């Protein structure tokens, strides 16, 4: 079973295509694992075995008839429960939406369906992708399979946990201030926030429209590229969608990093925010690994981290409050405490502050892209610390803002988080790679080279 539990999408796709692996057997094996493990990890709000088995049988028939649709055909996946799947509730992990049945598929759901992927269920999140980890909601928070009872990051927590525990090989998350990359960092998986506009957000419950992204989450870099390939594309009904050509993201994965210019944004984690020493060492070591592979690594200076955080926090507060104001007016008691606090924060901001935050965003974007002019890819921290016990609310609250992901929600650049080692206690450490807008392929190329050199993504939680 562990063979199937931690099988990569790329390896599974080969076996599914040749008939060596049956989509039904693969799906049944993972459903069985979800059944056995999820009471411990709470990755799922709702698993959908009937839906999954029906899709798996269809995939089996199609592949046997010679109609293989591509690398996602027959591959099980899960959706963060703010993403619509027609006929299923989209709860946003909130009492407010327990009975909210989606009428249509989100665009990303439709794309996965068309690719022949197998929908396995809806995954835990922080309430409305902002309030968590919380214990006062209709479902418990997801628990990290790394460590005893640790915080998995968020808000795409169930997505990170299901991947790390070998319950799924693919999941979707969303990222407004880092919510794909935070669980990727704390659960030792790979999470990509693509360029703003590359992946449609239609049918996804918004947190802050101007910063919201949907992103692929997987256990390996190659798998992430394969998943993004299915998700990326123009959507004329998403006002943020970009009309750009979609390259083959897996084509250049093995090109290596020799001669590439990597900009190390060291001041983010060594000066602006005093990261954990083991995390600093892991990042400096990652720079050395890339150097040893032939990349030219030099330090790059961006604006202080706090400026990006200020703009992000004001924009999220204001946009989220505007979305939730009518529910806060009529059903304030139905929110969990954390989500209510974070959304109420927007009630106290002024319109002028919001406009100034948008002005600051434009300035930071200009400055950041200018600093990237001489480099191919940026390297910096994702999280500043390893994870903490989930029952320690103060520790979780301290952990949350100590990060360097928000700058790239502000600029919209593609940013990928992946494992960069483990602490002496066996908890995941991480790094973040950042590209030029719409150059996800270059980010994947550097990530793949680092992954091959270190093999951190081959480690799985002890006992699983």
């Amino acid at each position, binding site marked *: 079973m562990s063979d199937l539990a931690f099988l990569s999408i790329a390896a599974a796709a080969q076996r599914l295509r040749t008939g060596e692996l049956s989509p039904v057997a693969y799906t049944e094996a993972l459903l069985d694992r979800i059944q056995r493990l999820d009471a411990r990890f709470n990755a799922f709000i709702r698993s959908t075995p009937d839906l999954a088995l029906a899709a798996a049988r269809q995939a089996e028939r199609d592949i046997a008839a010679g109609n293989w649709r591509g690398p996602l055909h027959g591959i099980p996946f899960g959706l963060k429960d703010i993403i619509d799947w027609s006929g299923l509730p989209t709860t946003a992990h909130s009492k407010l939406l327990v009975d909210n049945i989606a009428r249509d598929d989100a665009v990303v759901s439709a794309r996965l369906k068309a690719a022949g992927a197998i929908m396995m269920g809806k995954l835990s999140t922080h309430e409305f992708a902002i309030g968590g980890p919380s214990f006062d909601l209709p479902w418990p928070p997801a628990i990290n399979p790394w460590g005893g009872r640790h915080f998995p990051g968020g808000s795409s927590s169930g997505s990170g946990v299901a991947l790390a525990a070998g319950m799924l090989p693919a999941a979707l998350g969303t990222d407004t201030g880092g919510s794909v990359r935070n669980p990727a960092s704390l659960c030792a998986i790979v999470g990509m926030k693509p360029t703003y506009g590359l992946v*449609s957000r239609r049918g996804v419950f918004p947190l802050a429209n101007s910063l919201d992204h949907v992103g692929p989450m997987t256990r390996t870099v190659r798998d992430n590229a394969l998943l993004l390939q299915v998700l990326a*594309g123009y959507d004329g009904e998403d006002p943020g969608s970009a009309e750009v050509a979609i390259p083959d993201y897996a084509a250049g994965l093995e090109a290596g990093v020799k001669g590439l210019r990597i900009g190390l944004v060291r001041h983010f984690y060594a000066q602006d925010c005093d990261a954990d020493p083991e995390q600093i060492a892991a990042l400096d070591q990652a720079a050395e690994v890339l150097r040893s592979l032939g990349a030219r690594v030099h330090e790059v200076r961006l604006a202080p981290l706090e400026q990006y955080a200020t703009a992000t926090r004001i924009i999220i507060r204001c946009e989220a409050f505007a979305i939730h104001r009518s529910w806060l007016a009529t059903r304030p008691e139905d929110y969990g405490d954390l989500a209510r606090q974070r959304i109420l924060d927007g009630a106290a901001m002024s319109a002028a502050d919001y406009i100034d935050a948008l002005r600051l965003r434009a300035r930071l974007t200009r400055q950041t892209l200018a600093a990237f002019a001489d480099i191919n890819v940026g390297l910096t921290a994702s999280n500043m610390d390893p994870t903490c016990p989930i029952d320690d609310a103060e520790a979780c609250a301290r952990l949350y803002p100590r990060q360097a992901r928000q700058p790239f929600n502000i600029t919209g650049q593609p940013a990928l988080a992946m494992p960069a080692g483990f602490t002496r206690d066996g908890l995941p450490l991480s790094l973040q790679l950042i590209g030029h807008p719409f150059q996800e392929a270059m980010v994947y190329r550097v990530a793949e080279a680092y992954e091959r050199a270190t093999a951190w993504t081959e480690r799985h939680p002890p006992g699983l």
Partner: protein
Amino acid sequence: MSKAELAQIAAAAGLPRLGDKHLDQLQMAVTSARELAQKLPKDLHWSEELSLTFRLPRPTSPAPHSEANSEGHAKTKGTP
């Protein structure tokens, strides 16, 4: 800040049903909003353009009708 003042802020924000506990949260929101606004750079100028996502479609090239578009608009029923 008194409960009455907080209730006034809540009412101005269109939130008439906040209870005592929620008003305590609003108090924290007010404090935090002031701190956050103080962190905005002081040299932001009206001549600096905002970052906006809204833009009109180009009149000469209609948006291509992608496969995903044909799936229809996936609206969440409960969205306020």
